[in-house]
């Protein structure tokens, strides 16, 4: 029997149309707009100004605190301005806008393709390098990676978990990365293991990617301590807490972090970025982005420079289909519809999904019939129908005791609701109100 998490989950239509298209490098855009807040935590401080010449890999914004990340130029050219531009948050926020001129890289970056296996840096140096290179969790949450690797005193980590689950339907960027950059990724995992000083790393992959499982299983023989585990195809298998439960059967306590149960979880994309940063001195300036959808002419996986407008990707995949209803940043379950196609690709953009109008319509709302389907699919064991109502009534104290802060916002409840209720929308609203209250209580 395949490993999986014990409670809830759904299995939406997979729709992995782009699974067989190899990662293609997208041509350089004319201009890029690089937001200074691409991660969870404090927005970075721009260190360039209008008229500055930058090379690929030059730092353009500096980390503003411990939970923050550096941002580097993904192109070479001239800084046009630092201005507010609409980004994938749906708001105009400060971006560094750069006109692209040629492709001139910073001299310190090793541009060669050869695999560099031996790790010469110490664990402290690795951590510094990762911090310096602005690496954040590439699974979508964009939590600065050096923070996750800095284990506080008194906590003991004994296992590193690598998330290659990619449970979001449609998305294939991690899948292609595991097939095409497997060795680099494995070296990256070794680097992460060294930084955390653990001897064991488990890669979890959903069973709908047999080629990736086979490929990695064959390769890990040369990498002691790393194991590959196929997992049941069940959304949200890739949720941090679900993955830990499935792989090592430990339950992250309510309000706790994976490091409370001795585990750290990183995405495969992050492992690859760590390899490039540590071995090749290359900061996080590009990532794999899936451009897919039912009516898209050429569903593809692109290696995209950060800051490229989404429209460029759509053009490269054959243009916007006529029946488009929504363009979603991310997957269909957790992604968010974009309100403009000019928004830039950021560190957290794992895919752009173009949904036909008929599939992107919301179900018509009707009354809750107390069928408790949402309760049975909630992977966190919550009662979404109740939290939804409490959030609508602003019963914040009851929301808190009802465990709203444990919600991982996977959307299984809203997906399964036969009454078409916007459960997650209200739960998320309640969650943000409760977290504000908790924060003000701490002060």
């Amino acid at each position, binding site marked *: 029997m395949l490993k999986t998490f014990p409670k809830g989950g759904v299995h939406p239509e997979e729709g992995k149309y782009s699974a067989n298209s190899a990662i293609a490098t997208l041509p350089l855009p004319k201009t890029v707009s690089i937001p200074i807040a691409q991660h969870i935590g404090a927005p970075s401080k721009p260190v360039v100004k209008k008229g500055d010449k930058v090379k690929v890999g030059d730092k353009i914004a500096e980390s503003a605190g411990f939970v923050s990340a550096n941002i580097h130029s993904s192109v070479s050219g001239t800084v046009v301005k630092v201005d*507010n531009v609409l980004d994938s948050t749906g708001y105009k926020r400060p971006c560094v806008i750069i006109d692209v001129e040629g492709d001139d890289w910073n001299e310190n970056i090793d541009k060669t393709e050869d695999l560099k296996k031996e790790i010469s840096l110490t664990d402290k140096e690795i951590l510094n390098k990762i911090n310096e290179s602005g690496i954040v969790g590439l699974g979508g949450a964009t939590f600065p990676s050096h923070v996750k690797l800095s284990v506080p005193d008194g906590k003991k980590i004994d296992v590193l978990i690598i998330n290659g689950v990619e449970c979001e339907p449609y998305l294939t960027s991690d899948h292609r990365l595991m097939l095409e950059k497997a060795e680099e990724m494995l070296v990256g995992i070794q680097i992460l293991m060294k930084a955390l000083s653990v001897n064991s790393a488990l890669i979890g992959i959903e069973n709908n990617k047999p080629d990736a499982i086979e490929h990695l299983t064959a390769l890990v023989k040369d990498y002691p301590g790393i194991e590959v585990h196929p997992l049941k195809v069940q959304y949200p298998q890739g949720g941090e807490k679900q993955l830990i439960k499935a792989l090592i059967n430990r339950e992250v306590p309510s309000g706790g972090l994976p490091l409370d149960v001795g585990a750290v979880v990183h995405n495969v994309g992050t492992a690859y970025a760590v390899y490039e940063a540590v071995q090749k001195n290359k900061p996080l300036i590009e990532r794999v982005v899936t451009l897919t959808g039912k009516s898209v002419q050429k569903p593809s996986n692109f290696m995209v420079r950060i800051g490229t407008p989404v429209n460029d990707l759509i053009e490269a995949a054959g243009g916007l289909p006529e029946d488009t209803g929504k363009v979603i940043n991310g997957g269909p379950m957790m992604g*968010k519809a974009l*309100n*403009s196609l000019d928004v830039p690709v950021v560190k957290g953009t794992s895919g752009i999904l173009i949904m036909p109008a008929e599939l992107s*319509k919301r179900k018509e709302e009707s009354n809750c019939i107390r069928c408790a389907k949402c309760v049975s699919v909630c992977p966190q064991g919550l009662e979404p129908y109740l939290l939804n109502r409490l959030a609508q009534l602003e019963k914040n104290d009851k929301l808190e005791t009802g465990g709203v802060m444990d919600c991982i916002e996977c959307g299984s409840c809203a997906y399964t609701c036969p009454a078409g209720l*916007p459960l997650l*929308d209200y739960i998320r609203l309640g969650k943000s109100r409760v977290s504000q209250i908790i924060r003000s209580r701490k002060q």
Partner: protein
Amino acid sequence: MSATILFTIISLSAIGAVAAIILYFVAQKFKVYEDPRIDQVEELLPAANCGGCGFAGCRAFAEAMVKADVLSDYYCPVGGNEAMTAIADVLGKSVEAKDPLVAVVRCSGSPAHRERVNSYDGAASCAISSSLYSGETGCQYGCLGLGDCVDVCDFDAIYMDEETGLPIVVDDNCTACGACVKACPNDIIELRKKNKKDRKIFVSCVNHDKGGVAKKACSVACIGCSKCVKVCPFDAITMDNFLAYIDPNKCKLCRKCVTECPTGAILEINFPERKVKTEETAKKPVEKAENKEQDNN
């Protein structure tokens, strides 16, 4: 037989007497003294329990006022000065009269002025919409039109205008409790001084974008041109990050800024029509032009 009845009566009375004595002493011991003035004050409050005073209901507010030394920080917007002076009399304290306030909606971006660039199909709540993105129009500051302010109003004092999609405040019903101000995620609604005859002049816009950007998104936006600041004889208008703000305490309702505003972002409400004189002067050049044309013919 009669002995049994007698015995029962005596024993039950004895138990009753003992229990009464115990209860008397317990009641003395655990007596909670409640200031009778709390009830008196609560009686004078409007019992709206709206929370406009900042307390959890009228009773809590009454308790706080009875305990307080001075009443200057306490004000019931629903009861107004009338209720506050009555309460002050009961408590033997003094209270200063405050200007009554009224809610105003600082956005005029109806579909005619503000083009819809996308359509939102999520949960019908401004709070949710604003947590997802900047809204259906190009203006990320303006009214989202989903009516959170209407939902929270206990006094039927605000409703959505079907044509413009914007909330409208019913001045007579508005008690300035501030519920809509808190509910609006974009901070569009403001409590302003209720002037004589409900006359109001305010900048009906909260857009902080630069002039060109603001104007492109909405034709009645404040573009930060500062013309109103220059024309104001009372220094009541300040410009903060491309947005004008009229200080209600300094404004003398002269309406000079209204005519000066190039986009019509400053509104004048409940004023009589402007004097015919200005209309005539405005018409004169046109007439002259017509005459000229005739002359040419």
